[in-house]
């Protein structure tokens, strides 16, 4: 695999299942990391398993101010500009639409769609200036397929896919790439908290895709968009 030595990366939701796996993969390739998430103790734990080249910066991405400030804080911790942003943080508030509360909708939109927008905006300013940078947004297969009981989550993830495609067109000419990955069902703390209905309704073909990608190392899949970072 390619080397990310000397490169810096910010991973949000880094204490979660996917986030920690992404952090491990980036770290294994030599990148210096800033791990972000809401639970500082859990982040410190992940950082401890990685060893050197890791910083921790807790942030609550349901706050616009904290989302806006995160890239700057990460760069302050690193003491250098950010090369890679991984928008992995997300949450679910599952429920059928007729029972869905306003805050179930707005909280998912804020954390899963609006905060990636804020982080992209902050990170891309510097990346454009430097003519170099990588953004990887972690969406979900339900953003493409939909999933009963996840109107809010699938709408946010579909939004993320559209946003990513637009940003890629905006900044591609400047040596900055923006990609989105839509994982299938992966067993993590987040998906375990989903009511069985939404997890079960996941159709068989998608599950098999996940299994296939697991066998070929899910971690590799998540950092593939970084392959040509050195041009």
């Amino acid at each position, binding site marked *: 695999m390619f080397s990310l030595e000397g490169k810096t990366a910010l991973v949000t939701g880094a204490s979660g299942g996917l986030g920690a796996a992404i952090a491990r993969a980036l770290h294994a390739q030599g990148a210096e990391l800033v791990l972000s998430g809401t639970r500082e103790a859990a982040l410190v734990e992940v950082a401890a398993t990685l060893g050197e080249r890791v910083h921790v910066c807790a942030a609550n991405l349901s706050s616009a101010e904290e989302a806006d400030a995160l890239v700057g804080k990460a760069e302050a911790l690193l003491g250098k500009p950010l090369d890679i942003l991984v928008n992995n943080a997300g949450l679910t508030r599952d429920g059928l639409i007729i029972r869905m509360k306003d805050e179930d909708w707005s909280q998912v939109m804020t954390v899963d769609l609006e905060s990636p927008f804020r982080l992209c905006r902050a990170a891309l*300013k510097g990346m*454009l*200036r430097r003519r170099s940078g990588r953004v990887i947004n972690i969406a979900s297969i339900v953003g493409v397929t939909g999933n009963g009981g996840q109107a809010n989550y699938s709408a946010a993830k579909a939004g993320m896919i559209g946003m990513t495609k637009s940003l890629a067109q*905006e*900044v591609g*000419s*400047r040596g900055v790439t923006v990609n989105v990955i839509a994982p299938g069902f992966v067993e993590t703390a987040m998906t375990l908290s989903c009511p069985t209905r939404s997890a079960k309704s996941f159709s068989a073909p998608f599950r098999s895709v996940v299994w296939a990608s697991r066998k070929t190392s899910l971690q590799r899949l998540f950092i593939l968009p970084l392959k040509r970072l050195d041009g």
Partner: protein
Amino acid sequence: MSEIADKVKKIVVEHLGVEESKVTPDASFIDDLGADSLDTVELVMAFEEAFSVEIPEDAAEKIATVKDAIDYIEKQKAA
């Protein structure tokens, strides 16, 4: 030439990688200096930073030439 005009020219030269002689007051960023839409936004942001002014979207849209930029910033600074 004013200090502001000098600084604007310098930013344009740096940002667009064009020769200084081409950055005349009437030069259009897009038509004469090879800028695309993203360049013009980046230029506006660079002006904002360099001169500590805020250039709202509707004003930014009207800045098409080097002179437009100088005039706008001079007006803001005088106000």
